[in-house]
């Protein structure tokens, strides 16, 4: 990573290089206009309300080269810790943003479910691709989304036609690897579930030791009537990795979205997760765990729009802040005028374990409708002294007791995962960062 001269527009070199690759006209045009928007907007200004606690200066200073050909010697062992073990798992693996078929799963395709690497879809000029890309206007003129579109090249399309219950979980693994020159990748994931579809999707962002890259991911999810998506995103990148993610979800009637976002790694992380409840009966469970230790910065911005009557949301984010970690949580819930009978609960609990740690939490409720049930609460606290004594009085030393309670604080969120094998996998992932989490039940 090198400091970049003030005058050079960020990512101009990378974009120029991308212009030389072959692309259909519509794609070239899409990228050009997105890049123009990115250049025009620039990075979020420091004064911007949404970025108050997440300074992008460090990110702006770094120069990232585009993802090149991935290391050919990377084997599955290197990423074993990130892999969801399931006899039918449908897995795609991306190394520094580039799809590597050799690392994927080889299981038979699942009827009714179509998983296409985005580079393949682009190469095949899939006619509907352009329509699938969500109009960016929805995304609040967000520069990172524009940047992602400008570099649209790889990622995944996950499509389930109506009326299938897919038992095989889908996993997308994005691996960040060490390079002499740090690189930037901009994966795009598009998920479309038809009516009455049930699916489990895992996104794993994994970093190998020594990696210091920038992952700017964008996931868009559309859930048709009565569909259900269990979504688990785990970010375990390396100590030098930067990560920006955007997840946009739109939900039709009676669809259910259960989201679990765990941030356990990386150096500087900013996530935005937005859900639009567009039809009656749509409901979302939105859970998260973040660990801000060492000098890590983790910012989670979530937003739920209750657009119509009879929609429900239940959000629980818990954060652990220690060493010199800095965590930010901003949870916005907007209840539109039409959205009577909305049921919305939001809780954010933080464990602030060191004096040098920092947490900025802000719940934001905007309610324009009458006759709604909305609760929210945010807490910042320390470990429970009574519980600490109890554990110690049974023989556990102070450090172990602390670690156990810290893990337990996060585990409460994991225990809300209804779907197996997701819950178990989440527990495993959590245990990788918080070793005292009992990874196995009853062990």
């Amino acid at each position: 990573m090198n400091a970049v001269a003030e005058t050079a527009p960020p990512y101009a070199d990378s974009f120029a290089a991308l212009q030389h690759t072959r692309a259909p006209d519509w794609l070239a045009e899409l990228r050009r206009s997105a890049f123009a928007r990115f250049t025009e907007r620039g990075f979020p200004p420091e004064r911007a309300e949404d970025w108050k606690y997440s300074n992008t200066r460090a990110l702006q200073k770094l120069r990232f080269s585009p993802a090149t050909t991935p290391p050919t010697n990377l084997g599955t062992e290197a990423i074993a810790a990130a892999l969801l073990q399931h006899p039918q798992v449908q897995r795609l693996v991306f190394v520094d943003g580039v799809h590597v078929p050799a690392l994927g799963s080889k299981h038979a395709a699942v009827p009714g479910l179509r998983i296409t690497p985005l580079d393949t879809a682009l190469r095949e000029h899939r006619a509907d691709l352009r329509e699938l890309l969500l109009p960016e206007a929805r995304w609040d003129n967000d520069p990172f989304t524009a940047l992602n579109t400008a570099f649209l090249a790889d990622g995944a399309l996950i499509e389930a036609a109506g009326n299938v219950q897919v038992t095989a979980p889908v996993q997308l693994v994005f691996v960040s690897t060490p390079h002499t020159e740090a690189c930037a990748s901009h994966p795009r994931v598009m998920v479309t579930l038809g009516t009455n579809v049930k699916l489990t999707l895992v996104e794993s962002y994994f970093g190998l030791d020594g990696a210091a890259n920038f992952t700017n991911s964008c996931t868009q999810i559309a859930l048709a009537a009565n569909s259900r998506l269990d979504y688990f995103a785990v970010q375990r990148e390396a100590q030098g990795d930067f990560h920006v993610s955007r997840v946009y979800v739109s939900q039709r009637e009676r669809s259910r979205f259960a989201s679990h976002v765990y941030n356990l790694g990386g150096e500087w992380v900013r996530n935005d997760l937005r859900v639009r409840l567009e039809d009656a009966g749509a409901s979302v469970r939105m859970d998260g765990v973040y660990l801000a230790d060492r000098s890590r910065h983790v910012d989670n911005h979530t937003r739920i729009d209750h657009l119509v009557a009879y929609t429900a949301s239940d959000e629980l984010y818990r954060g652990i802040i220690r060493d010199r970690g800095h965590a930010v949580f901003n949870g916005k819930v907007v209840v539109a005028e039409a959205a009577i009978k909305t049921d919305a609960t939001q809780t954010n609990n933080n464990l602030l374990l060191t004096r040098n740690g920092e947490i900025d939490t802000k719940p934001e409720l905007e309610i324009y409708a009458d006759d709604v049930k909305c609760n929210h609460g945010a807490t910042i606290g320390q470990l429970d002294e009574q519980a600490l004594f109890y554990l110690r009085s049974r023989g556990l030393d102070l450090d172990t007791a602390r670690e156990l309670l810290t893990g337990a604080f996060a585990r409460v969120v994991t225990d809300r995962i209804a779907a197996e094998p997701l819950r178990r996998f989440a527990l495993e992932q959590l245990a990788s960062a918080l070793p005292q989490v009992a990874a196995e039940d009853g062990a």
Partner: protein
Amino acid sequence: MLSIKNLHANVADKEILKGINLDVKAGEIHAVMGPNGSGKSTLANILAGRDGYTVTQGSVSYQGQDLLAMDPETRACAGVFLALQYPVEIPGVNNVYFLKAAYNAIRKHRGEEQVDAVKFLGLVKDKMKLVDIDTAFLNRAVNEGFSGGEKKRNEILQMLVLEPRLALLDETDSGLDIDALKVVAKGINALRSPERAMVLVTHYQRLLDYVVPDCVHVLAAGRIAKSGDKSLAAELEQRGYDWVTAGASA
């Protein structure tokens, strides 16, 4: 085994214990009774090493060592166990995981090898039968959502698994139905042995019908106001505390 000499202790600058003297020998069971607020839990908590108490005078020796100088975990590893009057709920900590961690911590302290999950489960299931706890409790969070009686049984289960040298039971018999009381008594009696000592804090004679104590003490206003044999408990049940405490507070 346990020797408490002239123990004075404050809670929040208020003197609660005002010179406790108590000797408990291996093999003995002592019952400590006394009115609400007299300092029974304070005494038990101080012995287990709970924060929030300041010992201003006196000493406690346990197996020849200065008990008050030890961390709570060191006391536990040395064989001290306190069944709490109000067991703590710990969401997110699996009951059996916790129990195994405690068991292995104590074994490690003694230089014994660690016991794996399978072996431990076998051991714990045997003890569960004794206290009549369903195995479903193993995989629940520690005490979370347990009923009052279930929490008490869970304390007894922990005691049976950890096999302490000195067990302090703070009102483990309170709030129990008749069957549960018998179960708790059974647990206590199962552990009774010439190498062990127990101190039972209780308000009721009925536990002592099942667990016969060697000595009964009345703690009143921070002092041991009266000591006697098991007949003292029966007398208290009949006459109340007034006749004892009248002398103590003077």
